[in-house]
């Protein structure tokens, strides 16, 4: 009866003197795994605009139907996403969109901190997706 108790106390004592595992969020932040799927962002092309060519494959593959794309053809003949919106409240962060994208335009970033007060603010449009891109270096 007393022995198991002592055994337990031993573990407690050991933890008492080892390094703590708790992270002091938000002061401290944890490094996520390399394949972590966080909030989406757009890669840029040479011109600094989104690399997306509005092919529609991410829209087709998305299992939760949360990408809204209106593709247009510019006068130059290039395809361009006039509207590109991801409704993050419906997204399941499966990463299929990034996998489907033939030009690596849409990606899932490392960011997992995404809070807001209104539903509308959870719709990522082109500008926000571009702004979400991780800073260089």
């Amino acid at each position: 009866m007393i022995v198991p108790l002592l055994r337990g106390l031993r573990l407690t004592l050991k933890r008492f003197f080892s390094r703590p595992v708790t992270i002091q969020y938000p002061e401290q932040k944890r490094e996520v795994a390399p394949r972590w799927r966080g909030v989406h962002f757009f890669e840029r092309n040479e011109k600094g605009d989104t690399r997306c060519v509005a092919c529609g494959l991410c829209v087709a593959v998305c299992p939760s139907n949360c990408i809204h794309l209106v593709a247009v053809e510019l006068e130059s003949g290039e395809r361009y996403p006039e509207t590109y919106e991801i409704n993050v409240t419906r997204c399941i962060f499966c990463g299929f969109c990034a996998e489907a994208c033939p030009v690596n335009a849409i990606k899932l970033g490392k960011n997992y901190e995404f809070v807001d007060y209104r539903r509308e603010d959870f719709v990522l449009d082109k500008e926000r997706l571009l702004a979400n891109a991780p800073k260089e270096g």
Partner: protein
Amino acid sequence: MVRLTIDGKQITAESDKTILEVARENGIYIPTLCYHPRLIPIGSCRLCVVEIEGAERPMTACTTYVQDGIVVRTQTERLERIRRDALKLILLNHPLDCPQCDAAGACELQNLVFEFGIDQQEYQATRSSKGMREFATPLIRQWADRCVMCLRCIRADHEIARAWAIELVGKGYEAEVGIRDPAACISCGECLRVCPVGALTERVSRIKARPWQQQKVLTTCNYCSLGCQLELNIFENRVIGVTSQDDKGANRGSLCVRGRFGYDFLHGTERITRPMIKGAGNWKEVPWEEALSYVAAMINKVILSSGPGTVGGLISPRCTNEEVYLFQKFMREVVGTNNVDTTGRLCLEPYRLAIKEVLGRDYLPSTLDDVADADCIVVVGGDLDRDNLIAANRVREALWRKGAHLILVHPRRVRLAEEADCWFCLRPGDELVWANGLIHLLLEKGPEAWAVGVEAVEGLDALKEAAKKFTPEHVEELIGVSQELLTEAAQHLAKAKRPAFICSPPFGQQPYGVDQVKGLVNLALLAGALTGGGGFHFVGPQANMVGAVEMGATPLLLSGYRPGNGRGLSAVEMFQAASKGELKALFILGENPLITLPRSLVEEGLKALELLVVQDMFFSETAEQAHVVLPALSFAELDGTYTNCEGRVQRLRKALEPPDGLRWEGEVLSDLAAFMGKEMKAESPAGTFEEIRGVNPLYGGLEFEASDTQLRGGGRDNLLEKAVFSPVGPTQEGQEEGYPFLLSVEGIFYNHLTGSGPQRRAQGLAKVFSYPYLEMSAEQAEEMGIGDGDKVKVTTPWGEVQVEIRRSEGMRKGVLSLYLPFYEVDASQLVGPQLDAVSLVPAYGRIPARLEKV
């Protein structure tokens, strides 16, 4: 008939078919790429190879005809290898830019590559990228890199459109689809339609969507009376393109520039979306109830004070059968007047009356398929290529696939003139003399030159008598036609077993129009076009021209060509009556009479009206004069039917959600009736069609929800039963003093209700249709010192306009042709208020005119 075996299946087939066709008919799949059912096979892609027992090498199924007793195998290891290699070689030069390519998802190459499980470009080649290019028409983009050299586009251009705008340039590896002559391109989009990949893409819609994001809604073109079947491609309640299917409708997948590229007016700005009432010169938006109760009260007031005969209705021939039926019913039963008309009647009536007089019936049951089978074709009237391209293409099909002869009557050297055996460069109005000349020659040749059974037709002797004096010499003297040419044409007609006649406005819309057409019907009857021949056809500019008349939007007849109780006022007469104070209220649905009817008359009439209600999609010139304006649905926003010029009843299917607050015409009219204290039920388009079936014997057996087009009643049997030759002597009008030219106005009925007025809302079409111009003989222009593009003033006894000149080589001297793709010049003021006594149609052709340089 031959018997053969394909993949172990015993098949009996017609001997003039290829192995591919027979296999497809029997549900056996053979991959293809360069083959297209409408084009002559060239056997270049080698995907369709099959093995034939006994033959050493595999053969291409698309070019090999079936033979008795052959045993064909379509799936073997060797064939699979050949096909895979052929595909890999195509991929060698293919850029694989599917994500960027418009065709992705609907690409035949993609499908094949997927089917054969090829997942990489095995062979590599270096080739510089050619990028996007300007094509023969600004409505199509070319991406030469994506081309798989199937040559379908070039073959479609040469075989269907016969335009020779594009051709193969360069040799061997460097060969590519090049532009031969952009001026020859008629922007029909036939090349675009047959391209299996994304090497040619559509340029009208900025918005693009993948096939799985769109809905395709099969409906009927709302421009001309051929009523081509087309699919509106819808993405997020917008039309972003038009496609077509090979097996639907009389057009079999072909469309003209208007059908394929003329859809963007649907999303034009300034759509009317609310009822409006004009008060103190300002428009005020009001709820439907207020607008309708106001209109109802006003109409009731007019009826009370001056009787129902002072109310009139004008409806557009681009409204559906159901709308027209309800509109005329509203006028006849709720208001109680026969004053109802449509501009469709102004095109159809001369033709109907002529048929009626000669054949004792109101319409003919011939279809355009008969034209393609004809061996001699007579074309009279407008420029078929410009107005009714698909009919022109059927003519071409007969010409070069069946070796038919073409006799063309047109004052300009139009595209068909190049292909005609006999081109008669006549002044408008000379057609009757010309027809009589031919009748004379045919009669001279004796019965073997006539149609079977014609000898028994009443009136033949009278015809002989009347035609006696139209000897070739006399005809030459009267209308300046060479005797040899006339004799040659008579020769062709005499030999023909299946002659066909096609006519279109402005033929018939001239003084003595009905007589002119009658002359031609006499000729057609004598030559045999009506008895087992290619038929007598009338093609016109408005989608539901025939339907509108058959639904009863005419002052003379009820729905189904039944005689009414008394005659109402025709379109032009209504305005005449209005200016005299005898018509007080007018309800216009979708029409724009200021543009299409004699201007001075309409202006005066409109001013005098106590109530003018205009219902339209956009604010037309006439709507601006109205007291009340109501919004209307577009053809893409409603269900209904159109009847085309062959008598095919075809469905319009709702493809777009209309803007908020817009209502179907049936509801509007029944509400209006209710506010007037009467009852008129109209539940739905289908319900109304049901009612039409009951009332109109021609529509009795038809289904609203039919999956295909249906021919309305009346077979071809006993066409001669009531036939009587109706000889017409010369009705020649002299040239008017001081007006040395004869002017025809063309294109005036093309575009109304489609929002393509001067605002050019159909922006795609605006890119290829020029500003209005006046064509005249190049030679005469030279003599008068008028250059191409010079501004001139045209004056007729009724008005004048300024317009640019286009010199036309080979055109008849003394003839002018004013072409109005959009309405930037007010051509309607050139049209006189006189009506043909029988058809009540004003003259759009043969208007006396003079010309001055400005």
